[in-house]
């Protein structure tokens, strides 16, 4: 099976509101596929249609070749789901949560018990298997939720914001697990707000905005489409008051942004800007602490495609000089 997931013209209306607008894409078997988008873009609605929770207004979806509506039982046998909220049974123990999931998949008793034991040991929760999940931390509940999705040894796993709001240890455990599952041949469909995470983990990403797919490609190819978003990061030992304005006015600099103790200068010509910064440093008797050229990140692509930055710019007049991030745009840089 070449395509693990195929969505064709998936559309969802809530009353008159169009939440997902004729979305089509394919996810190859064994692929880690990232689904990115701002809040309200249609990510969760899409995942809910793909997993059978919600019925599409139009369009179809298939899982390992099975239509999610017409062959729903066969399609659902192929997948495990980790929703954005850890929907575990809080009044049941960790063990009973997994056993009940095994029963929903009609797994024979011996098989579900051995699988539950294996998963609880894998997630480091076997010693606490008899405790009610109610008393578990958020990260532990998340791990139980992922373990429940893996009970049936499914071919595809859907993860909706799997690391959102978790502590660093839980995030690292979950990321490592996703990599291992993918190495074992599982197809992973992941939605995340963490763009760097998607960049590191996904073979391909789709960016959805206002219910429409803005682009689908590998993270590196997407980054290469925004050459204009290359930048130079520079930090000085001490910076004069009007430095942001002056850096923004350097030749070939399209935009200057203050980020903490650093300044980020966007440009199409990083080498020219490096020379300009050196000259500026010399003429103002400044001391450079660090200077780096930075390629476009997936976040830059995301911002570029979704227009999130426009919203920030609209808010800018209200900002003060002391704001953490300040930005100067020099139109000459684009000329």
């Amino acid at each position, binding site marked *: 099976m070449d395509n693990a997931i195929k969505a064709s013209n998936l559309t969802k209306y809530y009353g008159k509101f169009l939440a997902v607008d004729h979305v089509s894409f394919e996810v190859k078997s064994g692929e880690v596929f990232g689904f990115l988008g701002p809040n309200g873009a249609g990510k969760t609605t899409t995942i809910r249609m793909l997993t059978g*929770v*919600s019925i599409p207004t139009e369009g179809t979806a298939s899982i390992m070749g099975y239509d999610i509506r017409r062959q729903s*039982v*066969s399609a659902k*046998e192929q997948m495990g789901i980790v929703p954005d909220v850890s929907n575990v049974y809080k009044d049941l123990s960790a063990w009973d949560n997994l056993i*009940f999931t095994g029963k*929903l*998949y*009609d*797994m024979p008793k011996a098989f579900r018990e051995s699988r539950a034991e294996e998963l609880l040991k894998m997630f480091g929760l076997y010693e606490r298997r008899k405790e009610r999940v109610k008393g578990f931390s958020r990260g532990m509940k998340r791990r139980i939720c992922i373990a429940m999705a893996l009970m049936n040894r499914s071919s595809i796993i859907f993860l909706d914001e799997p690391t959102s709001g978790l502590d660093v240890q839980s995030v690292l455990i979950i990321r490592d697990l996703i990599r291992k599952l993918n190495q074992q041949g599982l197809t992973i469909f992941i939605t995340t707000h963490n763009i760097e995470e998607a960049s590191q983990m996904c073979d391909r990403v789709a960016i959805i905005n206002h219910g429409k797919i803005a682009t689908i490609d590998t993270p590196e190819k997407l980054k290469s489409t925004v050459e204009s978003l290359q930048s130079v990061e520079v930090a000085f030992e001490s910076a004069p008051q009007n430095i942001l304005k002056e850096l923004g006015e350097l030749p070939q600099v399209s935009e200057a942004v203050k980020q903490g103790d650093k300044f980020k200068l966007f440009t199409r010509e990083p080498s020219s800007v490096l020379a300009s910064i050196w000259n500026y440093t010399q003429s103002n008797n400044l001391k450079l602490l660090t200077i780096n050229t930075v390629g476009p990140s997936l976040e830059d692509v995301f911002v570029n495609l979704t227009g999130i930055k426009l919203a920030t710019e609209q808010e800018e007049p209200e900002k003060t000089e002391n704001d953490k991030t300040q930005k100067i745009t020099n139109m000459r840089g684009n000329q």
Partner: protein
Amino acid sequence: MKAVHRSHVGRELRVAWAIAAKDMRTYYTQPPSIMFGILFPFTLFLAFTIGRNLPLAEQIPILISQTLFFASSSIGPVVIPLERADQTFDRFLTSPVSLLSILMGKTLGGIIYGTLISIIPVLVGIIVFGSQITNLAALIACFALSSLAFSALGILFASIPGQTVGQVMMPLNFVRIPLLFISGVFTPIGQLPVWMQAVSFLSPLTHTVGLASYASGGETFFGPVLNVIVLGAYAAVFVFVSIHFNIMNQRKQ
């Protein structure tokens, strides 16, 4: 390695039972289940009986009917909104099982709860008041069909999109309480005007009261056969409408 899959019908039944067993374990002792399923019918019964100089032994079929009615129809409206709030209801929708089996499991939870609670007045009637069960088949039919119909009624109301018990229980009580007045609970159907008797025929509770009275050696106004047919028909309609409402919810979600 894939899970070993077994026969389709057997699988659906096993999953339905697993859902019911989980509901029994998790929700039977929740305060709303006790409040609306046990305290409510017993309190109503006592409020109606105390001080009216009614022979308690003759009132036992009424108490059985009320407990069957309230207990069976309360589990779905308690369980489903709580599961919606926790998003655990979505687990059923994403598992490889039909919507019918999910609702069968939920209905079974109400049937067992209603039956267990309603056995109490039967035993109290026999042991304390010397009531007799003269027709065991009628009593079994009364329990089986009434608990099924009322549990399905609860599931139907639980299809109302809501994430709190109150959002479902309020409209359900809006229907349940008026039914008490037209179903031979407070006034025997034979004493009602003819047009009220026709309305009474439409209430499923009328037929539960009829069968419970008939099983205890009393009379049933519409006859036991009609009672059985009407309760069976209501059970089928409630299950069918519940499935339809749940599909509508999935379209709206």
